[in-house]
């Protein structure tokens, strides 16, 4: 009997017992430590993890161990996809996984789950984040406004005087840029839109012309129309729709 078939028993908070290969179980630094320092024959208690969650976690560990050891023929892209599907769970499960990965010290799983949560936060306004995660707002209106102002610096989109950088613009997509309400805006996008208009004029227009300036200056500029302009407090949202290929 080689060491690869050594099994470890794990008992969960709801008294379920799992028997797993050592190589899989020691993906958890906590279990590894207990196994190497405690008595290897008795059952290891994982008090804070339920059977359902541990079952999922063991699936994860097994997949990663097998792929690393070459026991499973799976490419990095496929493993990445598998991970992406693994975290397609309801929020309760996701946070249970985070707590368990933290407690069991499984770094890659903690990174994966935390990144998933981060992706659920990205691109959302505070109200939307509160709704998504059921978070209670304990600010007064004045207090929230004060916090907003205190953090305004992070959103002042100045790439230069009156310029701002739009992060992502792909052809055939609706893209959004938020610009602060300075008196003059020159927008230079990640894939090169050049536009200069004064904000006060923007506010009254239904559509404006935007020029897409290519990175290679020898390619002609392409004119596009901004489809929609929303003026908010201190910012203007511009929606672009690009049809042309560069």
């Amino acid at each position, binding site marked *: 009997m080689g060491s690869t078939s050594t099994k470890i028993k794990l008992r969960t908070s709801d008294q379920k017992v799992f028997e797993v290969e050592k190589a899989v179980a020691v993906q958890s630094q906590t279990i590894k430590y207990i196994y190497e320092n405690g008595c290897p024959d008795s059952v290891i208690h994982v008090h804070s993890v339920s059977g359902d969650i541990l079952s999922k976690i063991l699936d994860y560990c097994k997949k990663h161990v097998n792929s690393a050891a070459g026991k499973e023929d799976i490419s990095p892209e496929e493993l990445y996809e598998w991970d992406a599907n693994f975290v397609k769970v309801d929020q309760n*499960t996701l946070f249970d996984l985070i*707590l368990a990965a933290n407690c069991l010290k499984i770094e890659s799983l903690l990174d994966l789950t*935390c990144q998933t949560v981060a992706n659920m936060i990205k691109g959302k306004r505070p109200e939307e984040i*509160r709704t998504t995660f*059921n978070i209670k707002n304990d600010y007064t209106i004045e207090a929230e406004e004060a916090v907003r102002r205190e953090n305004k610096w*992070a959103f002042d989109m100045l790439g230069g005087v009156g310029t701002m950088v739009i992060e992502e613009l792909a052809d055939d997509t609706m893209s959004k840029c938020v610009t602060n309400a300075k008196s003059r805006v020159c927008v230079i996008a990640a894939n090169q839109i050049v536009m200069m208009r004064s904000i006060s004029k923007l506010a009254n227009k239904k559509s404006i012309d935007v020029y897409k300036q290519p990175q290679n200056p020898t390619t002609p500029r392409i004119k596009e129309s901004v489809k929609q302009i929303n003026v908010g407090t201190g910012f203007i949202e511009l929606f672009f729709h690009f049809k042309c290929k560069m």
Partner: protein
Amino acid sequence: MGASLSNLTEGSNGTAMGPGLGDIPESCVACVFTYLTPPEICNLARLNRAFRGAASSDSVWEMKLPSNYQDLLDLVPPERYQNLSKKDIFALLSRPVPFDDGNKGCFWGAFGVREGLGGGYEVWLDRVTGRVCMAISAKGMAITGIDDRRYWNWVSTEESRFHTVAYLQQIWWFEVDGVVKFPLPADIYTLSFRLHLGRFSKRLGRRVSSFEHTHGWDIKPVTFELSTCDGQLASCEHYLDDTEQDYDNGNHKRGCWIDYKVGEFIVNDSEPVTEVRFSVKQIDCTHSKGGLCVDSVFIIPTDLKERKRKGMLK
């Protein structure tokens, strides 16, 4: 284990909720934050008071600052950054910080901002990625013939972050050289020249370009070069103006600011200090050229220029 942002989740109809974003330990919250950009973290401060605390923690912001952020702080008078939290330091450094490279050596250091010759260097942290960016004004460059008003003039304008650009009326020997010495953090940087063919002004509230002096750029290309003290080189050539054959689609190089990419260079470490020399030249004296504005040189991490919204902070 640390405190958690507990008591922040409310269930509906009094049902027992599982753990939510408010219930995970601080270390996990910090892990989530590593995948968020500074603006996104600032956004979270508006959720509620506990999140505001978590979003202001030094450990989170220390990770967003470049490893050698102290070198940037040295450019600022100490009283401005003493007692600041790491978040406030990030905010401070995300606004352009002027520094004086001097014309002959490096004057960065704990002396604050200096008035005088040259000047026109700025460095800042990109708000989203925390990477170091730099801009060098034409004022900080050596321009051949800059003192002769027949050739060059300085024009005040709000279209430049330095509020001044150099306008070339006419010259035969067109050469602009610059050098910068700065402890840039490890990264791959793109250097580009910001140029504008023609001069511009405002007439009745509208921006107008004039090309009365613009000539000669379609005859021969200009040469852009950069070199680093550790031997990296890049150069390229561009015609700054369209030749007559290209006119079918209209002339697209005139009347707008164009960033001409010179090339890329790699910095492996903030020490030894990076020194980059850069230039743009057209010194074929058989033809004269003119009608060009030279604003500045940008040194920006290459990834920033081609950034896709993936959300991964490297």
